[in-house]
Each structure stands twice: as C-alpha cells, then as structure tokens.
C-alpha cells in the first residue's frame, strides 16, 4: 500500500512540478513583486510593503477603472446572454439553412480580435463609417454621431464585445439544449403547455446549470478582458472613458513603467474575482445542483 502510494506520488510529480512552475510560481512572484517599487525594465527596486495597496485604495483612477470594468463586464454579459440564448433557441429548431446559419453565427468568435476591432472602428468612424452613412441616409440622424468619441466610446465598446463574444453563449447553450430529452417537451405539450410555459418549465430548469457556468465564465472573462478594450481605445485620448482594471494594470506596468504597481493591481483583480466567484457560488448553489 505504502509502495503504491509512493509510486502514485512519483507519477504525479512531473505534473505537480509543471503546475507549480507555470501556475503557482507566477502568482506568488506577482504577489511578491507587488510589495516592491519596481521599475518595469531595470533591476531597480525598493521594498514598500503594502504601500501600493494603500495608494490604490484612495486612487481615483483605480476606482474609475473599477467602475468602468463593472459596467463593461455587466452590460456585455447581460447582452451576450440576451442575444445568445434566443439565438441558440432559434438554432435548435429545425428549418432550412440551419447548419449554414449555425456556421455564420460562429463567425465573430472565430476571427481574431484585432480584425474585429478594426472592422468596428471602420464601421463606426464618424468621417467615413458605414453606420453613420446608413443613419443619415435613413434620416435617423441629421449629423454624424461620434461613436468613437468620449460620449459613445463605452457604447461602441460594449456593442463590439457583444458582437464578438455572444457566439460562445450560443454554442454552449445550444449544446445543452440538444441533450434535453424530447419526451419532456412532448409531455408538456400533451398537458397543454404553451411555448412560453415549455420554455419556463422545461428548458430553463434543464439549462440552468449551463447558464450558471456561462454567467460565471463570461463575467470573469469580460472583467479581465484586455485586448478588445486596448485595441479600441487604449492608445487614444478617449481611453480614459473606458479604462478598465486590466488596461490600468497594463498601463502602470508598461507605460508608467511601474511594474510593482501593475502587479498590485493584478493581485487586487485576482482577489476581487475570487470573492465575487465565492459569493456567486454561495448565492446560486441551489440552482446549480437541480439540473
């Protein structure tokens, strides 16, 4: 017994070493780094303890970035589900061209983020963009709307992100829909349930577990989303209006050249997500288990 346990540990050792080196060590190193005033590219550092954390607790930029992150993650998550779930329900029905449509729906998720952002920046440009052209041609607006200006940049960012990421919801939800036994719908229909009641009493309970995971994953991913935000507005004068925590952490590390502060922001985000996830699990534990 003892010998087999030893063999087991020996077999596990490579995996544990890999995990430790690739996952645990970077996290611990990041925590350690956050305790120093460390230049981004020079071996110049000074121990400051929890100084960076104290600084961020009263830093208006930090709180503005946090607010932007919450608005961005919340709005995009709700809209992705609002668009993705009906689309999945539609694609679960039998109709001609369904397979083609399933492929088309996946398209935004398949293209690289840089392409998606350039495409949307072109569409929304207020000098030559198609969106303004259509709006003015249809007389819905008498002037070009500055979609990429301060007043609309968050809206544009949310629209771009929802367009790019809602297919994930479609695919995941559709996969679960396809495993619901048809007998449940047949029984509900025999009992005289309308389409809406079938959705509420059959589909929703059956898909609650997958919705639980979608909300969790999409919230985390959108809260930590960097590339879309940075590419759309990161280097521009309007970045202030959509600066989320990952962008602020990047800026502290690589444009302010304060690696220690960037590390502290990463740790703060990590803790925030841990706490939010724990609360989420606690609040929805019941719903998660009944499916």
């Amino acid at each position, binding site marked *: 017994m003892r010998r087999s346990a030893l063999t087991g540990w020996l077999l596990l050792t490579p995996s544990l070493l890999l995990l430790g080196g690739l996952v645990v060590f970077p996290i611990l190193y990041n925590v350690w780094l956050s305790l120093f*005033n460390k230049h*981004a*590219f*020079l071996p*110049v550092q000074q121990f400051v303890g929890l100084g960076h954390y104290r600084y961020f607790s009263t830093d208006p*930029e930090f709180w503005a970035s946090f607010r932007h992150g919450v608005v961005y993650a919340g709005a995009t998550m709700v809209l992705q589900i609002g668009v993705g779930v009906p689309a999945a329900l539609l694609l679960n029905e039998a109709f001609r061209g369904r397979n083609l449509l399933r492929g088309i729906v996946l398209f935004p998720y398949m293209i690289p983020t840089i392409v998606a952002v350039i495409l949307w920046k072109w569409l929304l*440009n*207020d*000098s*030559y963009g198609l969106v303004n052209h259509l709006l003015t041609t249809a007389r819905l607006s008498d002037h*070009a*709307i*500055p*979609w*990429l*200006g*301060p007043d609309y*940049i968050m809206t544009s960012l949310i629209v771009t992100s929802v367009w790019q990421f809602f297919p994930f919801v479609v695919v995941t939800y559709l996969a679960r829909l396809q495993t619901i036994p048809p007998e449940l719908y047949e029984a509900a229909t025999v009992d005289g349930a309308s389409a809406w009641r079938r959705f509420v009493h059959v589909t929703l309970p059956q898909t609650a577990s997958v919705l639980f995971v979608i909300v969790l994953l999409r919230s985390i991913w959108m809260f930590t989303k960097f590339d879309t935000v940075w590419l759309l*507005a990161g*280097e*521009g*004068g*309007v*970045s*202030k209006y959509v600066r989320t925590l990952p962008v602020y952490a990047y*800026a502290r590390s*690589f*444009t*302010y*050249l*304060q690696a220690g*502060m960037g590390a502290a922001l990463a740790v703060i985000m990590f803790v925030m997500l841990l706490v939010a996830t724990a609360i989420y699990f606690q609040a929805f534990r019941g719903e998660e288990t009944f499916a």
Partner: protein
Amino acid sequence: MARKFGVSRRHFLIGAGAATAVGLGAAPAAIGQQTRELHVWHTEVEPQTVKTIQDTSIAEFEKKFPGFKVRQQALGWGDLNTKLLASLAAGNPPDLTHLNPFMTASLYTKQLLRPMDELIRALGESDIHEATLKLQYFEGKYYGVTHAMGATYFAERRDLREKKGIKPPETYDDMLKLCAALTEGGRYAFQMPGEKLYMGFVHPAEWLAGNGGSWVDPKTWRPNLNSKPMLEALDYAQKLNKFQPQGWAGQKYLDTLAALANGKIAMAHLSGARTIGYIERYAPEGTRDPEHFMPLLRPHGPGGKVGISALDGENWAVFTQSKYPNEAFEFLRLFYKKEHYMAYCHTVPIHLTPIFKSMINDPAYLANERIKKWRPWHDVMVNGLKQNRFLPIGFSRPDDNLLPFLAELDGSGIVADMVVEVMVGGKNPKVEADRAQKRAEELLGQLGAKRWS
C-alpha cells in the same frame, strides 16, 4: 488489418537514426561557419527606406565584415518602445537602435548607453546641425546621434486661407480667427489626432514651449501643469475645439490626413513632409502642389515670442549591453557615408532632412525630384531651423533632454486626460490642470524624481 503502404517501426527507427547521424555529422561544420548577427532596430518603416539601408550601408558592412550579418528591423514608435523595454528587461537589447530623445535621458541615467564621441568627431561635430547635436549630450559626452530631421506642423489648404485674405497666424488669437473663417459649409477648420502620444504629449509640449512654459520647474522638477502658460494653452485648446469634428478624440493621425485630402477639414493639426506622399496619392487632381497644400508653423501664446513645432528625429543609440558595440559604431560610420546617407534621406525627401549642414544645401541633395517640386516645404524646414522654431518631440524647452521621466509622464496619460477633459468634455481648465498637477506630482514622487519639498 493488413498494412498496405505504411512504414514498419523498425524501418522508421533505422531511418530516423541515420538522419540524426547525418545531421550530427554535419553540425560541427555548420557551427564553425556560424555568422554573427548585428541587430539594428529603427523607426523608418517605409519600404523604400528599408531597401535603401539594405542595399547601401548593410551591403557595404557585410562586405567589410564577412563574418557578420546585419538584421534590420523597422518598427513604428509604439512597437519600438515596447520591444525595447522587453529586450532590456531580458538583458538582450539590439546592438544599435533608434531612440526617441525623450527616452534617452531616462536610459542614460540608468547607465544603459555607451558614449559615442569618437564617432561624432569622425562624422564632423561642427557640421552636425545645432538643432540636434547636443540632444544626447550628458556630462561632456555624446550618447546619441540623430538619424535625420523632420519637422511637424499644420498642413493647410493654403488656397482656402488665401481666398479669405488671411495671413499665416502668428498668435493663438490669429489662429482662432483663421479657424472661425475656415469653418463653413460643413467643413471644419482643422482636426487634431486622437492618439494619446500626440494630443496628450507632443502638442501640449508645443503649447508650453510656444507660451513661455515648461513641463517642470528646471531646478526642482516640480511639474508645471497648472502654471499660467499651461492654463492659457488649455483655454486656447478649448476654444479651438469647436472648429474641429466632434469625434476627433477617437480618430487617428492618418484619419486627419484623409479628412484633409477629401476636403472635410482645411488643416491637419499634425503633419510632416510625409504628408506630401499622401497628398500626391489622395488629394483631388489639380490640387497636388504647394499652391494648395503648405506647412504652417505653430502660433505662439501670450507668454511666448515664437511658436514652436516638434522636430521628429530619433537618435541612434548603442547600449552598454550591446553584444557588438564596436561593429555597431562601424555600421554607423557607413550609414552616414555621404552617398549612403543622401540615398537614405532621398527615400522620404524633406521628412528625412540631413543632419549635416553641408548637405542640406548641397545641390546634389536638392536635385531630388520631389524636393524640387515641393521646394516651399523644404524652405519651411530650413527657415524653421534657422529661426529655432523646432524642439524635439515632447520637449517644452531645450534642456528637457536632461529630464529622466518624460517617457513615464507621456506613458501615464496624465496630460492626455487633462487635455481631453478640457477640450472634449468642456471642463474648467483650472480644475483639470490642478487634478493633473496632483497626479504628476505623485508620479514623480513614485519615480524618485521629486526634488521639491
């Protein structure tokens, strides 16, 4: 199941073993012939420039040093800075690179640069234009040499201004009057680029320089973001804003050139001689000449005597960590060899104005077709140099080359946030300037650059 066309495991292993043996046998010879690589990074991304460097300086260098291969990489500003930071962090920077002058002091103070006095003397110290000679001069030694000079300025529709009977503006007030006159019929007077680097660093530096201000107090390094010159400049910028398209802050430098070419604006706020190529490709037929498009130097504010424009001119630098520093200096000697250097400058005429005073007026240099056609643009450059109308990018005064934190100030976006709030948000300049001042003081404190009490 019968195997029809497969390879047996035994045959596969024999084949693989034989291939490995052959490979290993050949390896010593290959190692013996290994060429050393000189890594050269620069910011001139035009294909014709890259090709010219390859065909002239690199070709001659590789002939002279047979064991070496030069690897040039052309990168945009932003990419270069990011890549440089990563390479320095890894302790493996290129042997030779372009640097923005506002980054040089920061790297010099960290003892990352090698002096190059011998090279400067060999090139002809007295022949190098004063506008660039001492930008990388610290404690009696040279730590860089500018590759070429290109002024930035407004590119205006000269014909539209002249139709209004208005002279080139000298002051902020003149510029506001010109903008009011040119904004009509759905056309805006001008457009500023929305990139943070320009609207949040390059232009505010020009505003300060042209209004008797500076980024920081020269002695204490305390930021001057809420000083009178900056407040006056912000007030000017806020008034200017109504003469440009609403969404400018979300658009880029090239968008402004497109807007100039298609007649949506009468002036592009940021332009250089590179714009000529754009005008020749995209402006309407019959307008692609200096009669219609001309540079316009910056106006000055109430506290300044002359408007200041940014001079685009990165310097070559050799790092202390460079693997082949001597060869890097040898490469530079070949780069500045007259025939190589003139060919290089001719790849983007006027934008790459030579640093050598003797060459700027050299008939061979001026014989270039584009310089001949666009001679008034060259003259603006030469006159601007004579009248001290240019400062390096991001400098508010000549001595800013000694500030080791300009790169961090630019990167922080503190100034950009202030400008966008004042111009686009219409906020009170004093309130925003005070906020920016507080943030800048905090930043300099964090960087260990606080000299005031």
